[in-house]
């Protein structure tokens, strides 16, 4: 039987206190996610149960029990404390998916500091913008990524410590650098987790918007309540499950459901820290006997592309439950997974700001392939009129998705940007920025974003950020960035540019510009295509009309162009 049993029954008299009781938490108590993910599980008698089974390059394998996680997170917390890191200081995790990332996250929270995970493929400018906004005190990283930190170090007087987890002594440490080897440092048996409260800051994830710089989404320790319960009811994690969340903890799925959810439930999870290939993923499932697999539509579509023959080479019968997140899961992928795995991927909808699942499909509930599912119990959701922000009572009519605040994992603000945070609410509803409609049976159906943000492979990219970076290239005079349809990633970045006099519009220049953005921002932000133009469509006041270019890419009606400069 599934944990949720019956969705309909769970809706009756639902209260978040269900999770509070299971976690032995009462209003006003201390609540520290780090402690809940390690010490508490050990106290429950699961100290020797595997918490993390990790595989890296070259077949390297490591295994950590919950007691290992407890001791090593104690050790990390103690090390940070001795460096002078204080409660609420921001500590950035800038690493590949290595064990230090997962256990370091727990250690930072135990100390009462704020964990700031950042995707390790970020270039130096993307890194700088985010560290600068957070005024980060320390960064934990690897040798392979430290050069990006060194490059911007002079601009970051607030960054006091650069902690290298794999320092091998071959080259001298540089300014502000310190070595910390998690597996060789003497273990700290006792470390009293900081008595954080429900509203104490816990995690700072960065997300992109249409305009302005990336925003730091502030979460608090009370987020555990809904992360715990959604993991239990939607991902349906049970005592003997072997769980695999493919998300990188540089993004919110990788922390909410790649660390907090499974470990607060005392579940064994596996991590594969190698690049993607269909063979390596199926081999991992077979070898580790994965039972619950939480992945993303882009990965699923890549697996579809790899074909069915490769699936037949592996025994994947251990799989009992599959779910997906990051972007809309198309109906074809749901039908395909049911055919080849015997189970459908259940789509889950939420975002960095919501912290936990909002609209989802549930074990036992009828699946409508392509639908986002229904609101999680305790979540009041609706579709709002785009102008009045009043709920639309008519089924099938498109509008903006709205959620009634508050649920436990709701973001508390944008870091040092309360003004933008307030703009996310209209008429008492939180607006995630997506459009959808509800059918007669109460299922939600995704239509699209309500802004220009590009969702590529489940990651949001700000067109503004890419356009600004493009203008820093010596050859680029003007730029406009839009989403381009893509079979695997749903959308990819496409740039339209005009060049300065003296620069030639050719293939080599395109590659130079692509690589410039890849290194400066990230591979995700790199335009997959650059189109040269003599001029870009602008309003008479000189503003570039991105929507005209977007419509051209998607074969849509351009709409009102009465304000176009010349047409």
């Amino acid at each position, binding site marked *: 039987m599934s944990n949720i049993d019956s969705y309909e029954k769970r809706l009756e008299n639902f209260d978040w206190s269900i999770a509070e009781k299971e976690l032995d938490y009462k209003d006003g108590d201390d609540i520290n996610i780090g402690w809940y993910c390690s010490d508490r599980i050990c106290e429950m008698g699961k100290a020797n149960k595997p918490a993390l089974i990790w595989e890296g*390059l070259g077949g390297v394998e490591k295994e950590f029990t919950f007691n290992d996680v407890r001791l090593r997170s104690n050790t990390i917390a103690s090390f940070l404390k001795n460096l002078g890191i204080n409660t609420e200081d921001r500590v950035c995790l800038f690493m590949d998916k290595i064990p230090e990332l997962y256990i370091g996250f727990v250690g930072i929270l135990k100390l009462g500091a704020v964990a700031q995970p950042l995707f390790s493929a970020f270039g130096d400018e993307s890194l700088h913008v985010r560290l600068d906004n957070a005024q980060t005190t320390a960064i934990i990283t690897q*040798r*392979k990524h430290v050069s990006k930190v060194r490059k911007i170090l002079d601009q970051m007087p607030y960054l006091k410590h650069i902690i290298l987890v794999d320092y091998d002594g071959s080259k001298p440490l540089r300014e502000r650098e310190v070595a910390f080897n998690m597996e060789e440092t003497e273990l700290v048996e006792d470390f009293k987790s900081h008595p954080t409260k429900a509203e104490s800051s816990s995690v700072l994830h960065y997300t992109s918007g249409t305009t302005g710089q990336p925003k730091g989404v502030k979460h608090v320790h009370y987020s555990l309540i809904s992360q715990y319960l959604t993991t239990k009811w939607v991902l349906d994690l049970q005592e003997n499950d072997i769980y695999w969340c493919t998300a990188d903890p540089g993004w919110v799925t990788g922390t909410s459901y790649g660390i907090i959810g499974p470990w607060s439930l005392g579940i064994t999870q596996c991590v594969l820290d190698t*690049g993607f290939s269909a063979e390596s993923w199926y081999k991992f499932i077979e070898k580790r006997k994965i039972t619950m697999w939480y992945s993303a539509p882009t990965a699923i579509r890549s697996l579809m592309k790899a074909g069915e023959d490769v699936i037949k080479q592996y025994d994947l019968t251990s799989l009992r439950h599959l779910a997906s997140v990051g972007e809309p899961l198309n109906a074809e992928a749901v039908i395909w997974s049911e055919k080849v795995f015997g189970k459908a991927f259940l789509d889950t909808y939420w975002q960095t700001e919501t912290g936990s699942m909002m609209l989802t499909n549930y074990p036992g509930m009828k699946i409508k392939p392509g639908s986002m599912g229904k609101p999680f119990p305790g979540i009041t959701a609706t579709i709002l009129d785009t102008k009045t922000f009043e709920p639309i009572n008519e089924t099938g009519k498109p509008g903006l998705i709205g959620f009634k605040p508050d649920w436990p994992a709701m973001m508390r603000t944008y870091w040092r940007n309360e003004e933008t945070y307030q703009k996310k609410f209209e008429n008492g509803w939180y607006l995630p920025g997506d459009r959808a409609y509800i059918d007669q049976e109460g299922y939600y159906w995704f239509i699209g974003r309500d802004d220009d943000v590009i969702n590529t492979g489940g990651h949001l990219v700000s067109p503004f950020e890419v356009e600004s970076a493009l203008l820093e290239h010596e050859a680029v005079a003007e730029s406009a960035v839009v989403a381009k349809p893509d079979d695997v990633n749903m959308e990819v970045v496409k740039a339209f540019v005009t060049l300065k006099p003296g620069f030639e519009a050719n293939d080599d220049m395109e*590659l130079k510009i692509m*690589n410039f953005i890849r290194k400066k921002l990230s591979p995700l932000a*790199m335009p*997959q295509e650059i189109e040269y133009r003599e001029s870009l469509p602008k309003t008479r006041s000189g503003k570039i009309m991105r929507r005209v270019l977007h419509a051209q890419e998607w074969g849509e009606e351009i709409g009102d162009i009465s304000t176009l400069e010349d047409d």
Partner: protein
Amino acid sequence: MENMKEVILEYVIEEYCDEENDDVTFDTPLISGGIVDSFSMVSLKRFLENKYNISIPDADASPEAFDTVEKIELLVKRFLK
């Protein structure tokens, strides 16, 4: 003609590695080894197409075909006229 493998290796090191992980060889896993991610693969493909004046269809540009410099050389040679 320049040694193709050398040219590709040099480009990979120059563009995708830094001083701490520049020990890449002809058979180092690039994609499955996390040195070149799926998004960056597009720029590597573009480099090959520009350099050798070829067009590699998307269907052939799989992570497996791009996984080592040796495999990339084989792929490029398939499309050289």
